[in-house]
């Protein structure tokens, strides 16, 4: 038993000085600053209700009118698409590519899954898995497009991502509003009709554990994919190669990695993940099996953009992404309760944007803080590396090269 304790303490001490620990503290710092700003906004907007407002903000998902337990269920239900878009952005980041086009991939996945889900009547019990897979593949295609533009034509990936977001949205809304309208759209509400029963994600007993929360098998899939992506990135040759491209594109090339192939495949996988996210949304049975609908408003879906702060907070690590997604969704669920107090629900989006802003340099702040602490303790530097090479003054270290 003592031996175990010793092992644990050494592992903890090792962890404390590791890069991973620094990254987590940086993320927590960014979150703290974001929430602080949220509190300030609440105080400024309406100081009268602020006490209640702040508590509702912090309670997040637990605010559910039917009780905290159902709140958790709702949290897990709503978080599912975010886990996927977070993974979509994170996976691409590992290869050094900024997947800002996750929204377009998500929308494409949603759209194709809806087509199969509404029009695929004769697929029987296969309707759901086929709809899901089709959605993933549609997203993969959309992601691969961005990848191709980057790898083969050197087009800035942010621009291609944004362009494809708009093209995707207009295409989908155009088709749904056009020749698909009579088959798939509820004219009065300007939304798609809900998918067939056979196309809906099974509850898998989760509706018994969290009744009326909407939670379905999707969360299990999300966790499954987190594990799968972790495995691919850390344990396979393929994942190792993708990461090497993200860390040092030139050295990866020198080592024999085909970086064009890596970028395209990485974006395809990222698109697949985002597509699955969109598919799971539209295929969800939701509360009381009412199903979900997609609105034909010309607005780019926010779920894709939410993936960005999630990926960064989670430092592009699959498990980190999962928890970051939980946090973001947790905060989002305070939107409605805050609204009913008279605060606009957009506070939540503001907070998330602020968190993203701070996470861009939270790591640098925490490095600065560690440097200050080192100075205080007057640490003598390790001489074991001294070898006569010229030592340049410290440069800020970048853990990943981001390819534009």
């Amino acid at each position, binding site marked *: 038993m003592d031996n175990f304790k010793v092992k644990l303490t050494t592992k903890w001490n090792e962890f404390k000085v590791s890069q991973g620990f620094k990254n987590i503290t940086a993320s927590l710092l960014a979150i703290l600053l974001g929430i602080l700003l949220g509190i300030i906004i609440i105080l400024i907007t309406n100081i009268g209700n602020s006490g209640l407002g702040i508590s509702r903000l912090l309670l997040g998902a637990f605010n559910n009118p039917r009780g905290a337990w159902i709140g958790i269920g709702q949290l897990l239900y709503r978080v599912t698409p975010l886990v996927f878009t977070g993974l979509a952005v994170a996976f691409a980041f590992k290869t050094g590519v*900024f997947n800002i086009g996750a929204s377009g991939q998500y929308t494409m996945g949603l759209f194709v899954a809806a087509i199969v889900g509404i029009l695929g009547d004769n697929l029987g019990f296969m309707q759901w898995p086929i709809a899901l897979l089709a959605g993933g593949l549609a997203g993969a295609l959309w992601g691969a497009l961005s990848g191709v*533009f980057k790898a083969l034509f050197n087009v800035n990936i942010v621009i291609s991502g*944004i362009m494809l977001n708009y093209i995707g949205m207009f295409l989908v809304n155009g088709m749904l509003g056009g020749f698909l309208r009579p088959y798939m759209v509820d004219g009065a509400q300007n939304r798609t009709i809900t998918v067939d029963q056979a196309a809906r994600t099974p509850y898998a007993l989760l509706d018994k554990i969290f009744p009326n929360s909407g939670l379905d098998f999707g969360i299990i899939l999300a966790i499954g994919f987190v594990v799968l992506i972790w495995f691919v990135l850390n344990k396979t040759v393929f994942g190792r190669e993708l990461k090497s491209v993200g860390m040092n594109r030139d050295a990866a090339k020198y080592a024999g990695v085909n970086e064009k192939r890596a970028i395209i495949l990485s974006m395809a996988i990222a698109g697949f993940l985002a597509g699955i996210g969109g598919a799971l949304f539209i295929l969800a049975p939701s509360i009381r099996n009412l199903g979900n609908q997609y609105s034909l408003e010309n607005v780019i879906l926010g779920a894709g953009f939410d993936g960005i702060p999630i990926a960064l907070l989670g430092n592009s690590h699959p498990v980190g992404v999962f928890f970051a997604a939980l946090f973001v969704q947790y905060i989002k669920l305070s939107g409605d309760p805050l609204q009913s107090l008279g605060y606009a629900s957009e506070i939540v989006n503001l907070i998330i944007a602020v968190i993203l*802003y701070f996470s861009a340099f939270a790591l640098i702040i925490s490095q600065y803080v560690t440097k200050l602490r080192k100075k205080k303790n007057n640490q003598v530097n390790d001489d074991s590396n001294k070898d006569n090479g010229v030592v340049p003054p410290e440069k800020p270290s970048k853990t990943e090269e981001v390819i534009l």
Partner: protein
Amino acid sequence: MSFIIAQSFYFIIPLLIVAIAGLFSEKSGTVNIALEGIMVIGAFFGVLFIHFMQAVVKINMNPQLLLFLALMVSGVAGVGFSSLLGFLAIKMRADQTIGGTALNLLAASLVVYLSKAIVKDTRIYFSAVFEFKSNFLSQIPFINYVFFNHAYLTTYIGIIILIATVLIFKYTRFGLRLSACGEHPQAAQSAGINVIKYRWAGVLISGFLAGLGGLAYVIPTSISFEGTVAGYGFLALAVLIFGQWRPSRVFLAAIFFGFFKTLSVVYFGIDAISGWMTTYPNIPFALFFRILPYVVTLIVLAITSKKSRAPKASGIPFDPLAG
């Protein structure tokens, strides 16, 4: 025809102004992905100002003067917002793409939030009285139509900005030094130039112009602002890349892209096209013209990006202490 040319100016000018905003920033060394967000902020505060003056104060002011003041408000708002980018990129030397994206999201949610808080609506309306209606040079009907009878103050301001930019970079100290900071900041530093100062100047000027550009986008084309500029900030980036960071080429690129954006709005007004539309009612012309600007952007960039030559040090944080 004059109608179409006049309409296209409404789209070209804001593109031009915002692309030049991006130019100032990138030439000094900072990648500005946040042009979209700054436009939104600028448009918001500008429209809010106009709304306030028209609907609340009910002031009786020359509309051009009102527009001019509003443009200044937009510019200042843009400066304020872009200082967030400056802080992140120049002071903290953090990743500029991520920071820029953060600012875009921040602008989007901030503007909706403030809109709801101040006017209790997500749309802010204003009275569209800013069109120039002058008979100057009416002997030349085309010129009169486009430049004096259906023009906006913003058109002239846009052209002035373009000319000023060309002159600044060709002939002035400021332009030369700013370019040096974006090409080889270490060389600039050892020549005695305060790189940090010039990079800040680049970002703040960028903010002013992008904010102004945001309002310039909204005024001629609608009667309200509802929190988005439909990807214009990113189109401006494409214009900048297509124009290879040279003011005169950026102008041509703005005309090119602005033309397609215009088409997406006026296509049915072109006789040939409306003819096709009646002949082939099943082809989704509306959809086609709507996505055309974005598709054209992708294709053009695909053709030109291989030989693209951005300012060499753009996007690379500058550490004044690392010799």
